C-alpha cells in the first residue's frame, strides 16, 4: 500500500496521465485567486481556481486566518458575474470557507438578494449558504423568508429550508420551533424528499412532546408516505411510541404492530429491514410477533448484496441473545455465511450460530471455525472466543472439543487482548466444569512456557497456585512453575516463587523438594524474589517462632483480605503516613453499589432495545459475598435466591430506597439500598423498622444499621427474619426508614455536630410464593418430564373465573409460580380456545419442579385449568398446588 497521507501530486511522473493538480501549491493558488478581482471576470478561469482551492481544502489543507479572509473577500466579488456555473461554485466556496461573524456581513446583502430572486435555484442555494454562516440575529431577519421557503412549491427550495432547519435547531431551537405549522404542512407535501426532510425536522421539534409524536405517528401510519427514507423514519418513530406506551390493548395486540408488520411487505428493502429490526427490538416481543420479521431477515441472509446480508446477520445476532430458539430456523443459511468474503459478516454468522447451535452441531461448527480463525483480525477472534466460552458453559459435555480448540488457538500468534480472552475463557471453564480442570491447567502450563506477556504469566501462576495443589498429581506442574524462575523477568519469577510456596504449604509430600527449590531462589538477583523466598521458607519451615500453627501459615498464604479491593485501595490512598500504622480493620467491608448518577440514567435513556437492563452476571455472587461477610448472617447457610430490587419510594424523592429479598433455607434477609439525594444532609444510623404483623411466620432476628449515608453515596442496611425451614412462608411487611439527620454546610462539606431523629415512610413489601422458586430452564421439557418419577405427579383442576383472554390467565399463573416458561409455551396463539404451558424451576431446598398447565376458555370467557406437577419431592408437588389454590 502506498503512503496514504502523501498528497496525490507527489508521486506521479507519468506525462501521459498527469494530474490536473500536478505540482499544486497553496501559495501559488492563492496568487491565482487574484483573478477574482479582475474588472473583466473570466468565469471559466475563476471556476478553475475555485476547483483548485476546493482540492486543497478537500485534502485536509488549511488556510490561515489572513489567507481565508483574503480568499473570502475575493470570492464575494464573483457575485457580479452572471455565469450560472460560477455562481454555483461561489456558493460552495463560501460554505467551505465558513467566514467569521464579522466577515459574513459582506455577503449577506448579496445572499439576501439571491434569496428573494425569481430564480428558484438561487433561492435554494442562498438559503443553504445563509443558514450555514448565519448567527441568531441575522436569522430573525430572514426567518420570514425561511418560513415561506419551507412551503415553497419548488421541492428544492423547500428541502433546502427544511434541512437548514434541522441544523439550525441545534443552535437556535427557539426560532426553529416557531416554524411547526409550516413544517407540518410540508409533511403532507407530494414531493418525496420534502416529506422526508419535513418529517425529520418535525420530529426533532416535537421529540420531547410524547403526545404530539404519538399523534404524528398515528396520522402518518394511516396516510401515505412517499419515500422509503421517510418510511424508515416513520418506523423508527413508531417504535419509539410503542416503547413509551408499552400497554397492550384489550385484544392482547400491541398498538401499531400491524403497521410494522405491513411494512415487511414494502417493496424497498430498506423499509423491510427497518420494520424487521423494529419488531425484533420490541420489548417483551413474543414468538408470534417475531416470526414474520425473522422470515424476511432469513431471506436477506442469502441476498446478493453484502450490505443486506450484514444487516440481517447483525440483527439476528442480537435476537439470538434473547430468543435463540427463534433464530434456529436460519442456522443453515448462516452456516453458509461462514465462508462469506466479508469477514464482518462471517464473524457475526459464527457468533450467532454459537448462540443458537445445539449440542449435536458443536463439533461440526468447531471444524468450520478452525479454518476461519486463521484469516480474521484479533478483534473478531476475541468475539469468537467469548462466544465459545458461553457455548461451553451451556453444553459442559462438549468441553473436550471446545477446550482443545482454545488450547490450539492459544499456541498461535496473537496480541495481548486476544490471548487474555483465551486465558480468561480457559480459567472460567476450569472453574465451572470440574472435568475440564486437569487438561485446562496443563494447557495453561504449556502456554506460560512460551508466553511473552508478563501479566498473563503472573495471572496463570497465581491460578495454578490455587487449583494445582487440589489436583490428583500436583507434582507434574512444578516443572513448569520452576522453569519460570530460570527463564523469566523478575515479576514473573516472584510470582513463580509464591506459587511454589503454595504447593509446598498444601501438599505435604512435595514440601521437602519445594524447600530445595525455594532455597535456590535465595540467590536471585532481584530483591523481591529473594524476599519472597525468604519469607516463605521461614513461615513454612517455621519452628514456631514466626507463626504458631500450620493453619496460620495457610491462612497467611491463602487467606483473602476479607475487604473489597476497591475499598482497600481508597483507604490506602487516604492514609497519611504517621506514627499510627495503617489498620486494615478500618477499611469498610460494604460493597459499593452503583452511584446515583448511573442509577438515574436508565430512567431517562430507557431505550427499550433488547433486554431490560439486568444486573451484571455476577450479581448473585456479589450478594453472596456481601452477605457472608456480615457476621450476623454468616450462619444462614447458602443463599438460595436474590430477588431483583423492588422500589420502595417514588422516583425523584428525597431518599431513594429499594429492597432486595435474599432467601435462605430458614431465613429471609431484606437488603435496603438507600440513597440520600439531598446535598445539604448527612444521615446517620440509618435503619428500617419493619412491621411484620401481617407476616405471621416471620420473626425478626437481626438488623444491621448503616452508620452514615452521605449525599449521593448509596449504602445498605439489612433486616433478617427467621421462618420455618423449607416452608414458602408468605406475608406483607410495612417499612419505616429511621435515621438521624445532620445539616451539611455546602461550602465546606462539613456536617453539624448535632442531629435530629427523623422517620420516612416507605412502601410496603411482600414476600410471595414465587420468591422461593428459581427460574431454571430445561432444554428438552419432554425428556425432563419423563425422567421424573411419575409417582411424584399430582394433578388437580382449578376454575380461574372470567378472564380477559387466555394470554392473561397464562401470564397470571406464570407470575404466581415464578417459574421459567419452556419452549416458548408462554405464548398463546390468537383466538385459540385451549393452550398448554410448560414451566420448570427449582424450589427452595434445591428441589427440581416441572409443571404442565392446560388451559381452556369457554364462550363466557370462564377459564379452567388443569395443573400437573412432577418434582423430586412429592411434598413440593403439593406445595405448588397449595400456591395455586391460595393464589
Amino acid at each position, binding site marked *: 500500500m502506498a503512503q496514504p497521507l502523501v498528497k496525490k501530486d507527489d508521486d506521479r511522473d507519468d506525462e501521459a496521465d498527469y494530474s490536473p493538480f500536478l505540482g499544486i501549491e497553496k501559495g501559488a493558488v492563492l496568487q491565482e485567486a487574484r483573478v477574482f478581482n479582475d474588472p473583466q471576470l473570466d468565469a471559466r478561469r475563476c471556476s478553475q481556481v475555485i476547483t483548485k482551492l476546493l*482540492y486543497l481544502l478537500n485534502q485536509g489543507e488549511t488556510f490561515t486566518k489572513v489567507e481565508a479572509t483574503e480568499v473570502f473577500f475575493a470570492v464575494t466579488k464573483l457575485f457580479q458575474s452572471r455565469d450560472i456555473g460560477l455562481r454555483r461554485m461561489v456558493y460552495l466556496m463560501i460554505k467551505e470557507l465558513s467566514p467569521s461573524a464579522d466577515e459574513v456581513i459582506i455577503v449577506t446583502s448579496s445572499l439576501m438578494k439571491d434569496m428573494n430572486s425569481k430564480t*428558484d435555484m*438561487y433561492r435554494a442555494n442562498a438559503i443553504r449558504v445563509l443558514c450555514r454562516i448565519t448567527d441568531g440575529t441575522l436569522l430573525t431577519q430572514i426567518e420570514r423568508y425561511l418560513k415561506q421557503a419551507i412551503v415553497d412549491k419548488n421541492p*428544492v427550495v423547500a428541502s433546502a429550508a427544511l434541512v437548514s432547519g434541522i441544523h439550525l435547531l441545534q443552535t437556535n431551537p427557539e426560532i426553529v420551533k416557531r416554524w411547526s405549522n409550516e413544517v407540518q404542512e410540508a409533511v403532507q407535501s407530494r414531493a418525496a*424528499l420534502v416529506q422526508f426532510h419535513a418529517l425529520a425536522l418535525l420530529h426533532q421539534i416535537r421529540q420531547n412532546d410524547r403526545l404530539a409524536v404519538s399523534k404524528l405517528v398515528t396520522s402518518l401510519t394511516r396516510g401515505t408516505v412517499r419515500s422509503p427514507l421517510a418510511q*424508515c423514519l416513520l418506523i423508527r418513530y413508531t417504535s419509539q411510541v410503542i416503547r413509551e406506551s408499552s400497554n397492550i390493548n384489550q385484544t392482547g395486540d400491541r398498538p401499531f404492530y400491524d403497521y410494522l408488520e405491513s411494512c415487511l411487505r414494502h417493496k424497498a428493502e430498506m423499509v423491510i429491514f427497518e420494520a424487521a429490526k423494529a419488531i425484533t427490538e420490541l420489548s417483551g416481543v413474543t414468538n408470534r410477533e417475531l416470526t414474520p420479521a425473522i422470515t424476511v431477515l432469513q431471506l436477506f441472509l442469502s441476498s446478493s448484496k*453484502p*450490505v443486506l446480508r450484514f444487516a440481517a446477520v447483525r440483527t439476528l445476532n442480537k435476537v439470538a441473545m434473547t430468543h435463540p430458539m427463534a433464530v434456529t430456523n436460519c442456522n443453515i443459511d448462516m452456516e453458509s455465511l461462514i465462508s462469506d468474503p*466479508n469477514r*464482518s459478516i462471517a464473524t457475526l454468522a459464527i457468533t450467532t450460530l454459537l448462540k443458537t447451535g445445539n449440542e449435536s452441531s458443536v463439533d461440526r461448527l468447531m471444524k468450520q471455525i478452525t479454518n476461519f480463525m486463521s484469516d480474521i483480525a484479533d478483534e473478531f477472534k476475541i468475539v469468537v472466543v467469548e462466544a465459545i466460552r458461553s457455548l461451553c458453559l451451556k453444553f459442559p459435555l462438549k468441553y473436550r472439543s471446545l477446550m482443545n480448540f482454545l488450547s490450539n488457538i492459544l499456541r498461535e500468534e496473537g496480541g495481548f487482548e486476544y490471548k487474555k480472552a483465551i486465558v480468561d475463557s480457559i480459567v472460567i471453564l476450569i472453574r465451572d466444569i470440574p472435568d475440564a480442570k486437569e487438561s485446562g491447567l496443563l494447557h495453561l502450563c504449556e502456554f506460560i512456557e512460551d508466553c511473552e506477556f508478563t501479566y498473563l504469566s503472573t495471572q496463570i501462576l497465581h491460578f495454578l497456585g490455587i487449583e494445582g495443589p487440589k489436583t490428583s498429581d500436583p507434582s507434574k506442574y512444578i516443572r513448569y512453575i520452576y522453569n519460570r524462575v530460570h527463564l523469566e523477568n523478575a515479576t514473573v519469577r516472584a510470582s513463580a516463587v509464591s506459587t511454589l510456596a503454595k504447593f509446598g504449604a498444601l501438599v505435604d509430600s512435595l514440601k521437602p523438594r519445594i524447600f530445595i527449590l525455594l532455597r535456590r531462589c535465595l540467590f536471585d538477583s532481584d530483591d523481591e524474589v529473594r524476599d519472597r523466598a525468604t519469607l516463605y521458607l521461614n513461615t513454612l519451615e517455621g519452628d514456631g517462632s514466626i507463626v504458631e500453627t500450620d493453619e496460620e501459615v495457610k491462612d497467611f498464604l491463602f487467606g483473602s483480605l476479607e475487604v473489597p479491593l476497591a475499598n482497600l485501595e481508597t483507604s490506602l490512598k487516604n492514609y497519611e503516613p504517621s506514627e499510627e500504622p495503617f489498620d486494615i480493620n478500618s477499611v469498610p467491608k460494604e460493597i459499593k453499589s452503583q452511584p446515583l448518577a448511573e442509577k438515574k440514567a436508565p430512567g431517562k435513556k430507557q431505550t427499550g432495545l433488547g433486554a431490560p437492563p439486568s444486573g451484571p452476571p455476577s450479581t448473585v455472587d456479589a450478594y453472596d459475598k456481601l452477605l457472608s461477610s456480615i457476621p450476623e448472617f454468616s450462619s444462614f447457610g447458602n443463599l438460595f435466591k436474590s430477588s431483583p430490587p423492588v422500589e420502595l419510594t417514588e422516583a425523584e424523592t428525597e431518599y431513594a430506597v429499594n429492597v432486595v429479598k435474599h432467601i435462605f433455607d430458614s431465613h429471609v434477609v431484606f437488603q435496603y439500598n438507600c440513597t440520600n439525594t439531598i446535598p445539604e444532609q448527612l444521615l446517620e444510623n440509618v435503619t428500617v423498622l419493619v412491621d411484620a404483623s401481617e407476616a405471621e411466620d416471620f420473626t425478626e432476628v437481626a438488623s444491621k444499621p448503616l452508620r452514615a449515608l452521605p449525599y449521593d453515596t448509596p449504602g445498605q442496611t439489612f433486616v433478617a427474619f427467621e421462618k420455618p425451614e423449607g416452608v414458602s412462608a408468605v406475608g406483607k411487611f410495612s417499612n419505616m426508614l429511621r435515621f438521624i439527620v445532620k445539616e451539611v454546610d455546602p461550602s465546606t462539606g462539613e456536617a453539624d455536630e448535632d442531629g435530629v431523629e427523623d422517620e420516612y415512610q416507605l412502601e410496603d413489601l411482600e414476600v410471595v410464593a414465587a420468591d422461593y422458586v428459581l427460574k431454571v430452564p430445561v432444554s428438552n421439557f419432554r425428556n425432563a418430564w419423563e425422567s421424573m418419577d411419575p409417582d411424584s405427579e399430582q394433578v388437580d383442576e382449578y376454575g380461574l373465573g372470567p378472564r380477559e383472554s387466555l394470554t392473561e390467565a397464562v401470564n397470571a399463573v406464570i407470575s404466581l409460580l415464578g417459574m421459567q416458561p419452556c419452549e416458548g409455551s408462554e405464548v398463546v396463539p390468537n383466538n385459540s380456545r385451549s393452550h398448554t404451558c410448560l414451566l420448570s424451576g427449582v424450589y427452595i431446598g434445591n428441589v427440581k419442579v416441572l409443571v404442565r398447565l392446560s388451559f381452556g376458555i369457554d364462550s363466557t370467557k370462564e377459564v379452567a385449568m388443569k395443573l400437573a406437577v412432577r418434582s423430586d419431592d412429592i411434598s413440593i408437588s403439593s406445595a405448588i398446588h397449595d400456591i395455586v389454590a391460595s393464589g
Partner: protein
Amino acid sequence: MILAVLFANSEGNILVERFNGVPAEERLHWRSFLVKLGADNLKGVKNEELLVACHKSVYIVYTVLGDVSIFVVGKDEYDELALSEVIFVITSAVKDVCGKPPTERLFLDKYGRICLCLDEIVWKGYLENTEKDRIRRLIRLKPPSEF
C-alpha cells in the same frame, strides 16, 4: 449523521475527504483507518460492489468505482442500509458526471463538478438529494425536471 465521505485513489492517496461532526484530531485516524480498510479488502472487488464494516456504533460502507475507492461513514440513523443508499447516490452522480466509472485522471478533471454533486448530496451530515438527474440539474442551477 453521515460522519465522513472519503475518496481515495488505488494507491490509497486521498482525493476528497469531507468530515461532519468529527473532531479535527480524530480525522487523521479515520483517514488512515479507512485507507487501510480499503487496502485490505477492496482488491478484486467489482465496480460498485458494496462492502460493509462496523466499529462499535459506527458503520462504514465502501466500494470501488473505476480507479477510485469511495468510503461513507455514518452512525445512528445512518446505519449500513442508509449508507448504502448514500453511496449509491454518490456513485451514480460520479458516473453521471464522468460518463463512466472514472479513471483517476478523469475524476480529477471533473473535480469541481464532483464537489458540487457532493454538496448537493450531503448537507453537513444529512442526506439531501437522492436522484442523479436532479443532482445533474441542480449543480447547473437548473430546477428539477419534475417541477
